[in-house]
């Protein structure tokens, strides 16, 4: 199928959003957030792919050989590492929430009043 990876990216995004809405505590929500992030990685890398082309590394191939797009790979690779650090920041927010409010279920937490 010619557009199958794009549909897989849409599926990953949709199932991640379903997981966020159905989650019963904030830690499960963060796991579903990582699924949503992986949807963007799959979409970006699928856009840059060329059939019968190699990796954009020319240490063993001559320069003219067909290669996939390096720009999207550069975007995705920094994104993965920084995304993990931001996930750790979200987890530490959840730990603080537990200390202040005693619970981490989204259904029982009401917005601050007064």
């Amino acid at each position: 199928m010619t557009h199958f990876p794009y549909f897989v990216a849409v599926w990953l995004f949709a199932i991640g959003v379903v997981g966020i809405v159905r989650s019963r505590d904030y830690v499960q929500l963060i796991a579903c957030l990582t699924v949503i992030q992986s949807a963007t990685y799959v979409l970006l890398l699928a856009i840059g792919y060329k059939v019968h082309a190699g990796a954009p590394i020319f240490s063993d191939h001559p320069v003219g050989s067909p290669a996939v797009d390096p720009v999207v790979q550069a975007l995705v690779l920094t994104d993965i590492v920084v995304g993990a650090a931001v996930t750790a920041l979200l987890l530490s927010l959840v730990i603080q929430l537990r200390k202040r409010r005693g619970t981490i279920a989204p259904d029982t937490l009401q917005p601050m009043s007064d």
Partner: protein
Amino acid sequence: MSYLINALLLLLILTSTSVVLTRTPRRQGLAMAANGCVLSALFMTLQAPDVAFSEIVVGTVALPLFFYTALSGLRTGPRSDPEAAPLKDHNPS
């Protein structure tokens, strides 16, 4: 090689759905690690070795580790009253 890419994409659908639908936190961390493995295999077949490097270590080791450590920290931390005084220093000096 399109059979390999399509097979890995189907496997990716399975593993990411399992991350979302798992209810026990202990199993969800392992599902995240499996998702990271499949993602990095997919990135290798899409001719992106640099991205596969990052995804192997981050998705399989770092993210489940942060997940499990946060879960363990949630269980050992004290539950505080919202109107109580702020937490004191716990390090023995």
